[in-house]
């Protein structure tokens, strides 16, 4: 190595700035999606950061170099100070993204958000048909989303439609794409469910079969050919069907900083499940200390934490060992290789889930558990709130 300041194999060079700030303003949500990634114990988190707490966080993160901010949740429209936070973020120079189910995004609030300088709205759809949509989100929201999409267009915001894809809606991908075209979305994200939190609970009901995925990919390909100039369609295959893990969050503590509703700072939305790690709270620490100094953020930076097969793997830089949460959920060891990797000694856990998904009877045997406060209380009874870990 020519540059004496560059990192060695295991040492960590100073990380770059947290370019992406995800502000999870609240865990409250009018929907009850069975694939939600919010923690099972969300109901035990009741102390939300107040307006000043969020403004301080936005300022400190911007100072470090954060440039994209996503206002998310839960449902961020439930925060009456959303407009104030967007205005602050915009004036600080952030590109401001609102990630919403659309519930609460009235024409009036849209106008106020436009005046506040909101740059972009990502609208989530649970499915394109009313019946399935209502079933999957367990509320009557579909007509509303059509209205909200029109409001977004009226305000000239770029619109990204996000539809979480799973076993029960993947066969309707063509209808979902048609809907996105009708609504004038510039981008459609067909995001296959990632199996954390509530989605992990419901995994057997949500993981599509191989045949379903191949069919949906082919359909997506045909639409891309035909409408590629109008809409960009992103299709993400569930990682259980891959042989190498994803480079989770593009590297731990590398670009993503999540602030949860109570102010706890995380390197990803679900990292709080990991055992033996303390994550700092922005109420007590500056964002700079959180990002550069805290044990929680430094633990899995770089490659020093790796064990075999990752430690000597020639592909270690491609995926950095995959997802720590998935490794922990599926193997019980947060330092293990993500078992999606076929070099992992635990790959059989993933293979078993995949095998089950090829069998309709096994896959449909479980009733869905919907994300709601009652289930949250039931499932986390006697456990430590948001740290609730579910058996894999």
């Amino acid at each position, binding site marked *: 190595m020519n540059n004496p300041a560059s990192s060695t194999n295991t040492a960590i060079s100073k990380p770059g700035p947290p370019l992406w700030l995800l502000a999870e303003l609240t865990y409250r949500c009018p929907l009850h999606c069975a694939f939600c990634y919010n923690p099972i114990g969300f109901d035990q988190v009741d102390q939300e950061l107040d307006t000043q707490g969020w403004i301080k966080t936005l300022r400190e993160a911007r100072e470090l170099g954060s440039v994209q901010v996503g206002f998310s949740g839960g449902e961020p429209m439930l925060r009456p100070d959303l407009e104030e936070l967007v205005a602050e973020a915009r004036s600080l120079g952030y590109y401001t993204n609102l990630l919403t189910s659309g519930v609460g995004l009235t024409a009036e609030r849209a106008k106020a958000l436009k005046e506040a300088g909101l740059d*972009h709205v990502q609208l989530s759809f649970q499915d394109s048909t009313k019946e399935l949509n209502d079933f999957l989100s367990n509320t009557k929201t579909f007509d509303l989303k059509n209205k909200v999409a029109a409001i977004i267009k009226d305000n000239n915001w770029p619109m990204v439609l996000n539809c979480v894809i799973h076993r029960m809606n993947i066969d309707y991908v063509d209808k979902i794409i048609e809907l996105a075209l009708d609504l004038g979305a510039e981008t459609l994200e067909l995001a296959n469910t990632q199996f954390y939190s509530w989605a992990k609970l419901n995994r057997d009901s949500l993981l599509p079969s191989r045949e379903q995925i191949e069919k949906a990919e082919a359909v997506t390909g045909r639409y891309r050919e035909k409408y590629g100039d109008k809409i960009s369609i992103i299709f993400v295959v569930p990682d259980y069907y891959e042989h190498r893990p994803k480079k989770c969050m593009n590297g731990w503590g590398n670009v993503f900083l999540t602030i949860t509703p109570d102010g706890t700072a995380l390197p990803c939305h679900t990292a709080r499940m990991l055992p033996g790690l303390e994550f700092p709270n922005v109420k007590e620490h500056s964002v700079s200390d959180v990002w550069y100094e805290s044990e929680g953020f430094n633990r899995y930076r770089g490659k020093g934490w790796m064990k075999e097969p990752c430690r000597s793997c020639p592909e270690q830089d491609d995926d950095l060992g995959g997802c720590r949460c998935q490794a922990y959920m599926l193997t019980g060891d947060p330092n293990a290789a993500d078992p999606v990797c076929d070099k992992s000694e635990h790959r059989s856990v993933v293979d078993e889930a995949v095998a089950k998904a090829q069998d309709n009877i096994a896959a449909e045997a479980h009733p869905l558990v919907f994300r709601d406060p009652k289930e949250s209380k039931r499932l986390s009874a006697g456990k430590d709130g948001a740290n609730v870990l579910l058996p894999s």
Partner: protein
Amino acid sequence: MNIDTNTVVSISPGLRLQFEKAQDTWVLLYPEGMVKLNQSASEIMQRCDGERKLSDVVKLLEKDFEQTGLEPDVLSFVEHALEQKWVELRNE
């Protein structure tokens, strides 16, 4: 692609060009993403103000950098930027 230099070039709606101190570079921001621009790309983009014709963008760059014959390079970048939907062209 044949680009008419009499068209006006502007940054696509919803995108934003800005200088980022922490990264010491110009970036183009779009929904949930960002592209870092190299120096020549950022010099071109900064002059695409939605009022200048492409031919005037070229002239201005040649004047500011005391060079000539920049048109092919500028057009080649604009072609790329159009493909990426970073910019739009419109006829006056």
